[in-house]
């Protein structure tokens, strides 16, 4: 463990767990206005939804272990992959880091007592829960869960008899939650920075959440209206996406992807922010190229909003649009690459400390790079014709989303666990889980890359015998991955109750959250700090004490 710094005050204040506010018991949680409690409320449900998404995935892989039907009918399989996508994307990956760690840590990292609009923050959580409940309703009522894929493409989504209206309404509500979180965090960053906390002294995690929040505000409304239109089409036959009435289904795809591509940046930017915060701490070295990383995040948000057509290369889109979108897709790789170079440059000649948070960040860099490079391959027009709608695509995005965002999320779990809970997990177990996960992950998803390359179509229930060995490997890999996940979560869960008491600054971080007690007091700071150094100024930290 790294030497710590004395805490703020001699008499430790009660932690925020002991300051319930206006209400008692469960109400002190579900009616709280404390950003830390709201972050934890999101934490519980994000993990619960993640587990349910994993279970769905487990059964999908189990079905695909052999050609033909194994344990379910084709319709069930269609619903499984639809639900897996809806849950993972809208209930886990998009919200997770901003709502859990953005809520908990952004105010503390900027030296504030809470977010700009605490009541809206609570409303965001209630909308999240409501949206989730509505999606759950769509599974268990009417003619059953949606079977369109999470993308709800028209005209099938207009005609299929299952519970599309409920599902899209749920997505709409979730979108509202996302927009409100975004505007809350942008306003907080603008208005509540402590004296001396200039934009250039903000932790890169804050910069990342800031960029993400802008995308949430500006892109989410477009999927909002698209979901409303699906709803209206089904009930009133409006005609905007229905070819029989002159509608253009490709326009649906435009509207859908105008949000859903930037949504992938909502997913990845916060995780990149975590890596940018964690790597310097465990290299004991200032981040290489602070402004480049900060601004590349904004650039990713901006350019990433221009590439959505790369999901539509074979849809019937014009050649001209195809060329344009392909070019823009190649451009957006540049700011991502800048980040990867800068992280590696930070590690170079650093004083590396091997701890679980760093290991998860290193895994991020490796897996995200593979994901990113495969993205370039499919972003080129000619290969895309062969790779589109094959297993290559889900393999690519699982490398990015799971390997990237997921491992970044796990890094955050392991980095901020002592701060949030005042306890430490078992270090060796975390590392063992990490190793197992890496092995399982690559067995699983690399097999899928190969399957896609060979032509295995995605969202298919059945397949030709020649694909069997790779499917078997993938399913096997999924079991190893899940085993790793179980060990990791069990370790964290155990640490929650039986872990050693954690110091206030076990990692020697220089950002503000490490200068207050673990767990933090309700008001975060005794007095609002005056900031005099940058977020990775470890020299200053040593001098301070």
């Amino acid at each position, binding site marked *: 463990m790294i030497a710590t710094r004395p805490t703020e005050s001699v008499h430790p204040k009660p932690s925020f767990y002991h300051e319930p506010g206006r209400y008692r018991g469960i109400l002190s949680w579900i009616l709280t206005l404390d950003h830390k409690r709201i972050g934890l409320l999101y934490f519980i449900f994000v993990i619960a939804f993640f587990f349910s998404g994993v279970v769905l995935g487990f059964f999908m892989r189990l079905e695909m272990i052999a050609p033909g039907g194994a344990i379910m009918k084709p319709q069930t399989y269609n619903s499984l992959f639809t639900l897996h996508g809806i849950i993972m994307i809208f209930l886990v990956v998009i919200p997770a880091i901003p709502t859990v760690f953005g809520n908990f840590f952004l105010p503390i990292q900027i030296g504030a007592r809470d977010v700009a609009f605490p009541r809206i923050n609570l409303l965001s959580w209630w909308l999240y829960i409501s949206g989730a409940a509505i999606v759950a309703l769509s599974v268990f009522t009417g003619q059953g869960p949606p079977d369109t894929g999470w993308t709800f493409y028209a005209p099938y989504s207009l005609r299929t008899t299952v519970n599309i209206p409920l599902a899209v309404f749920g997505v709409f509500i979730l979108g509202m939650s996302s927009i409100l979180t975004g505007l809350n965090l942008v306003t907080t960053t603008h208005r509540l920075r402590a004296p001396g906390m200039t934009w250039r002294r903000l932790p890169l995690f804050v910069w990342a959440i800031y960029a993400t929040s802008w995308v949430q505000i*500006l892109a989410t409304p477009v999927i909002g209206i698209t979901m409303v239109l699906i709803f209206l089409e089904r009930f009133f036959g409006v005609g905007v996406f229905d070819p029989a009435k002159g509608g253009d289904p*490709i326009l649906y795809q435009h509207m859908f992807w*105008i949000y859903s591509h930037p949504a992938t940046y909502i997913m990845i930017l916060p995780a990149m922010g975590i890596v940018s915060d964690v790597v310097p701490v465990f290299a004991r070295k200032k981040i290489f190229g602070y402004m480049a990383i900060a601004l590349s995040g904004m650039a990713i948000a901006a350019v990433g909003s*221009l590439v959505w057509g790369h999901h539509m290369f074979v849809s019937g889109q*014009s*050649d*001209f*649009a195809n060329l*344009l*979108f392909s070019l823009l897709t190649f451009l957006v790789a540049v700011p991502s690459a800048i980040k990867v170079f800068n992280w590696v440059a930070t590690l170079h000649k650093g004083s590396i400390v091997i701890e679980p948070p760093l290991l998860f960040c290193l895994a991020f860099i490796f897996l995200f790079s593979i994901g990113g490079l495969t993205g370039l391959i499919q972003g080129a027009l000619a290969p895309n014709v062969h790779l589109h709608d094959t297993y290559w695509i889900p393999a690519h995005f699982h490398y990015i989303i799971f390997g990237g965002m997921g491992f970044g999320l796990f890094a955050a779990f392991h980095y901020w666990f002592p701060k949030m809970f005042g306890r430490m997990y078992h270090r060796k177990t975390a590392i063992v889980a990490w190793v197992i996960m890496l092995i399982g992950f690559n067995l699983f998803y690399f097999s899928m890359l190969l399957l896609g390359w060979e032509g295995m179509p995605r969202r298919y229930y059945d397949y030709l015998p020649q694909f069997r060995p790779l499917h078997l490997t993938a399913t096997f890999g999924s079991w190893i991955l899940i085993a790793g996940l179980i060990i990791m979560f069990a370790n964290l869960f155990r640490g929650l109750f039986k872990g050693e008491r954690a110091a206030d600054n076990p990692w020697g971080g220089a950002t503000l959250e490490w200068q207050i007690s673990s767990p933090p007091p309700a008001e975060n700071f005794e007095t609002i700090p005056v900031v005099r150094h940058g977020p990775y100024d470890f020299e200053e930290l040593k001098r301070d004490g």
Partner: protein
Amino acid sequence: MAKYRTYILVWVGLVILTGTTLSVAGMNLGGWTVFIALAVAGTKSGLVLNYFMHLRSERLLIFRVIIPLVMAVFLVFILLTFADLAFRGGVR
């Protein structure tokens, strides 16, 4: 600071512009019609944004940025969509 007089003047401007766009609609200007209609609507919106919504008197940078930002975002969405729609038959 907000003056009643300013508001009334803006209102007069809005009424005049509404009349303008109505009468222009009666003329046959071909391809220019949409452009003029949007230009008038844009001007009216500009009046509402700047005077009724006080954007003009905001000093912080962020307030000056947000409307151009949303216009740019919308423009990009619509232009790239038209890169598809307008060229479906191939580039001539």
